[in-house]
């Protein structure tokens, strides 16, 4: 806290906009400086007072919708009783109550907007919220993993956007909702520039770093790839068959439907839902990391900072293999977005992976299978899917026969190494090696020959230690 700047605490803010002037058009969007003597959004000169900024004036409208919507919902549900009651009490009183609710809701919306502000200082982003219970979130910029701009459908129509902040060690994302679209872009660029280590004065000027398109997934290919997923068809046929059997057996249509609906929901989430979310997926390279843009209705904009990727997973479903398509997922500490490329030809996907894991050549990885003698009786059929490759940069383990998954961890990201061996495995002379990463993930190389596993345990500990020395710093601009 720098402290002492006037108007830092909401309720007694001296100047600032007195009236939000209704839902102002998007063109008037802008962070409104609250403190006197502030020089607008760009006031990041060293020594200048920290500027508290407000959210977009559209916000109270959204906030007010909650109580209004709830009120209407209750009325709708109790329509009969409400009508009766309104007749008894006379229409005058009813209107009065409706108006009172409306006023209270708008007041609530306005106040909660008025009491929410944010400020960017040299080291942190401060967000103050709360009407009655004040809450101030201090987000350290060097702990910032990624900043995402998302535009839900309604917000897209009104020209505003939501800023989501990924911070190490927090469960839920802090968010700034809503900001003008332009403001959100600028703030995002500024935060990332500062997190990357640019001087504060420079950070505001650097602006959105220019990007270079790496990959764009055509809608047709996305649709084809989703149609070629076995899981969806299995869920559909399984659900239908199960529902039919239950219906036949019990002569109860409801029971059948009850079985079918969750299956349909799951199938929809894995196909239609994914299509909506992953439509027009573009990957752009920029100095602040890889930028992902995607979504048909809700546009999302995400950034994957380089050097913070804990592990990468290459997924090859059975039906994609003839076309040589792959899906790339990744784990970033503190972040929930996990898809890097929803579907792409292997070469294109590997080119993108090479950006997040510099110096790693995935095609050069030679996977050694598990020993036939030992593994065959521990995991009967699926043992053939297991494989392990260790290069100077990464530890890569493969598993699965129908849907092949390859997980790749840079040695620099390994937190601890474990070796486990159950009684059955010992009898067959094999052991498992687990590698734990910071994104709460564990990559397991299963069923390695026991002597090899012990050697791997020792070697991996050494590699994870030395790998660190050669990896990129977190503040990649400094």
């Amino acid at each position, binding site marked *: 806290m720098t402290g002492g700047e006037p108007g830092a605490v909401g309720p007694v803010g001296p100047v600032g906009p007195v009236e939000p002037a209704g839902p102002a058009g998007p063109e008037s969007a802008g962070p409104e400086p609250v403190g006197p003597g502030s020089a607008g959004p760009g006031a990041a000169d060293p020594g200048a007072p920290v500027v508290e900024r407000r959210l977009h004036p559209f916000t109270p409208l959204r906030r007010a919708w909650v109580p209004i919507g709830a009120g209407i919902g209750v009325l709708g549900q109790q329509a009969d009783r409400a009508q009766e009651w309104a007749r008894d009490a006379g229409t005058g009183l009813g209107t009065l109550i409706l108006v009172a609710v409306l006023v209270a809701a708008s007041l609530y919306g306005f106040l909660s907007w008025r009491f929410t502000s944010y400020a960017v200082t040299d080291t942190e982003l401060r967000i103050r919220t709360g009407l009655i219970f004040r809450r101030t979130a201090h987000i350290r910029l060097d702990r910032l993993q990624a900043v995402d701009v998302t535009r839900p459908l309604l917000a897209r129509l009104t020209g505003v956007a939501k800023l989501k902040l990924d911070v*190490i060690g927090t469960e839920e994302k802090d968010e700034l909702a809503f900001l003008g679209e332009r403001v959100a872009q600028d703030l995002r660029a500024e935060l990332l520039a500062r997190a990357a280590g640019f001087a504060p004065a420079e950070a505001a000027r650097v602006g959105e770093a220019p990007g270079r398109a790496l990959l764009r997934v055509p809608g047709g290919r996305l649709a084809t790839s989703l149609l070629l997923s076995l899981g969806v068809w299995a869920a559909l046929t399984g659900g239908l068959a199960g529902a039919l059997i239950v219906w036949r057996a019990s002569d109860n249509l409801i029971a059948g439907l009850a079985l079918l609906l969750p299956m349909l929901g799951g199938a929809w989430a894995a196909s239609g839902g994914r299509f909506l979310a992953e439509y027009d997926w573009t990957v752009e390279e920029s100095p602040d990391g890889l930028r992902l843009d995607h979504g048909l209705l809700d546009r999302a904009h995400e950034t994957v900072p380089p050097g913070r990727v804990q592990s990468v997973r290459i997924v090859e479903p059975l039906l994609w293999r003839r076309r040589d398509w792959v899906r790339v997922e990744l784990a970033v500490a503190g972040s929930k977005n996990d898809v890097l490329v929803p579907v792409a030809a292997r070469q294109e996907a590997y080119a993108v992976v090479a950006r997040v894991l510099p110096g790693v050549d995935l095609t050069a990885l030679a996977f050694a299978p598990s020993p036939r003698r030992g593994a065959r009786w521990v995991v009967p059929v699926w043992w053939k899917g297991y494989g392990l490759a260790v290069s100077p940069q990464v530890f890569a383990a493969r598993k699965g026969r129908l849907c092949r998954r390859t997980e790749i961890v840079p040695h620099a990201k390994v937190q601890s190494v474990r070796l486990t061996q159950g009684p059955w495995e010992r009898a067959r002379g094999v052991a498992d090696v687990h590698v734990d990463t910071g994104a709460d993930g564990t990559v397991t190389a299963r069923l390695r020959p026991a002597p090899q596993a012990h050697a791997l345990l020792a070697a991996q500990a050494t590699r994870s230690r030395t790998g660190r020395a050669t990896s990129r710093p977190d503040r990649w601009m400094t």
Partner: protein
Amino acid sequence: MGLPGRLLTLRRLLLVIWMTVLAVATAVLAGLLIGPAWAATGLVWGAVLVWGWWLLGRNWRSWRYAERADDLLISRGVLWHEQTVVPYGRMQLVEVTSGPLERRFALASVQLHTAAAATDAKIPGLAPAEAERLRDRLTELGEARSAGL
């Protein structure tokens, strides 16, 4: 290094107490509800006690930890064997805990935390002096070789 013998004593004492309680409860219930002769079923817990006694000893003997030049190695388990290696540079936090029973037996546990939740590096039942020495030593080494995520 292995673990002090007091840990084994504590665990075996707990085993004896629990088995006795269970045996008495089983014997009384069976004796009252079915017939006096059935009270002998309580002896089943005696067999469990012998088996557990042997298991505890075996497990206790299997525990090893070693402070190596750059990492800590913990090895444990007989049937389900597990070895954990944590490089000093990756330790985020070292924790020494001691419950009421452990304190009574002059024991303390050292737990290491890294950024990975799956890291399971706990050394139970050390002598308090050794636990504190280990904590200080690990913290010191961790600082010297510190690395982030």
